[in-house]
């Protein structure tokens, strides 16, 4: 049998650097379609054609009913798991050692090409359709009508823990010191209400992972990132239908 000789030295290099920008663009479009579908109608419309998203300012108000509509974009691939965000959060919001408002998850991909591990920061998604708020028997947790932040009113919390069950993102825990459920509120009481523009985690991040801002403001970075079409944007567990305001991307 004749042996096929392969000229390894002169084979065309297939690493990502040699892909043309046209090929790259085509590939990203596929990703865009897939993630758009999975992210649900609202995001799909946001990333399809920016000009067509809002025909009028009225329509924009409907889409982003809060002003400022606080939101966070997590540029996931920039995260190096330094945990400065977690430390800053714990200090700012007096989070006890047995709990957390935000944390960084690790995903190992031993078969992946290149990087073998990625980090996924998680926090309360400040959902537009929050399962926790619906489940609370005493309105101890509500969606703030101005900012859209899911707030806790500690003195009303009976500690039934139904909101902990209801949250699709495991963002809630029982805080012994407060005798109530505690959760991320985008540092509303500790920073935003005092004039700060960023949450403690966003301010502490050295890698530009946590982009925080007003999604209803077209000049904000979160708006720009969520509405661009070159890089896929997604949310966690879209199938639940909670309509999160925390977005993820690798860019």
């Amino acid at each position, binding site marked *: 049998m004749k042996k096929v000789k392969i000229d390894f030295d002169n084979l065309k290099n297939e690493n990502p650097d040699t892909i043309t920008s046209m090929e790259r663009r085509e590939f990203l479009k596929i990703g865009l379609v897939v993630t758009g579908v999975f992210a649900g109608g609202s995001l799909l419309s946001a990333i399809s054609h920016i000009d067509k998203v809002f025909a009028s300012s009225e329509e924009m108000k409907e889409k982003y009913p809060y002003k400022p509509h606080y939101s966070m974009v997590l540029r996931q691939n920039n995260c190096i798991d330094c945990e400065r965000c977690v430390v800053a959060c714990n200090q700012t919001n007096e989070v006890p050692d047995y709990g957390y408002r935000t944390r960084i998850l690790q995903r190992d991909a031993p078969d992946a090409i290149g990087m073998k591990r990625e980090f996924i920061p998680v926090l309360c998604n400040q959902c537009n359709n929050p399962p926790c708020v619906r489940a609370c028997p005493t309105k101890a947790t509500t969606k703030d009508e101005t900012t859209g932040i899911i707030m806790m009113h500690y003195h009303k919390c009976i500690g039934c823990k139904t909101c902990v069950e209801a949250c*699709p993102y495991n963002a809630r825990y029982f805080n012994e010191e407060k005798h109530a459920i505690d959760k991320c509120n985008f540092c509303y009481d500790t920073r935003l209400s005092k004039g700060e523009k960023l949450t403690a985690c966003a301010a502490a991040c050295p890698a530009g992972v946590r982009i925080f801002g007003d999604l209803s403001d077209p000049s904000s970075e979160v708006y720009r990132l969520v509405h661009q079409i070159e890089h896929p944007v997604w949310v966690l567990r879209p*199938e*639940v239908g909670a309509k999160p305001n925390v977005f993820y991307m690798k860019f």
Partner: protein
Amino acid sequence: MNESEEVKKSANASTLVKDMKESFQSSFLRDWYATLVGFLSGSKSFYVLLVLGVLVIYAGTMAGFDAARIGYRHAYGMTREIPWGILISTYVFFVVTSTGLCIVSSIGHVFGVKDFMPIAKRAVFLAIVTITAGFVVIGFEIENPFRMAIYNVISPGLSSNIWWMGTLYGAYMAFMIIEFIFLQLEMHKYATYAGLAGLLSGVAAHSNLGAIFGMLHSREYWYGPYLPVYFIASALMSGCAAIIFFTWLGYKITNEKMDRPMERSLEVISKLCTLMIAIVLFLITWKIITGMVGAAGKVEALKAMLVGPYAFNFWVLEIAVGLVIPFTLFLTSKGKNLNTLFTASAMMMFGIFFMRYDLVLIGQAVPQLHELGVNEYKGLLTYMPSFHEIAIVILGMALTITTFILGEKVFQGHKSEIH
């Protein structure tokens, strides 16, 4: 409202007061005097049981207060990922039994089916006892029960199933107590109204309990209209088992022989119980079959139940001990052999306890973010009841059994004439 209606209404009210007065003076007071004498001359073993029961209740209550003192986070086995443990499942167990007893009693007392009348008084009494036990258990589970009393009223979350369940169960308990008082006074017309109100609020409350789980849309194993429906079917099944179990025991305690109508009643209830087991088995079967083609979270939870860490609980305790063997025993005894009926109902009570436990725990076994595939949420979450939790479960059981024994003596075997 016109004048004649008003007059009629006030006349009705005065008749009610008059009726109550008369009943109280004649039957009630006389009965109570006889009861007091009977109680004081009760047998030795009765007092031993009573004292033992009270001691266990005392120990359980102390364990509960101790847990509150050191903090539930330290005392209980619950975690951030599994915030509901054996205390919630025991609460579910008690309130399912209570609702079931209420439904079974209503068949006789509200809807007038003669064969169900002999058990009705005992069933109403036990419905009150079991809901109380349920409230005691959940009282030690909820972190701030006192805040609940205040903010349930002044800040009601009307979209919350917990709110509806709590409120409706509160009303249910009140109606059942009123019904029981009317039954003691032999005022069956008013007892029927109270019974109907109790039945309606009980069924509404109980389906809301199912909906607490069924409306958590991030929990695939629970989510859907199945649980509210299943809870009602399961309640009737549990109620039948409980009344057979306690009636048999009641006759053992008072050492009396059952009369014919009571035997007939248990026979009919065992047949209803057989039917309800079949319905529940049917529901479970379709829950599994539909779930196996569902979302990943649901499939993983079902695997945990069928072949995973909950397989023994499911196949042996739930299916074999709780359903299939009692089903066979009921069928073979044809409802005639009282001892077989008791054995079957006791097995059911045991199995149903684990049915509730599995329902609550399996629903939380799959981590919320398992689909991310992160290291933190690989595999199933585990939970182990702590000493304090088990002590409170025993407290609930002891409370039920002790009050039941006391009730048998005080209310003289819950005898009732057939009207």
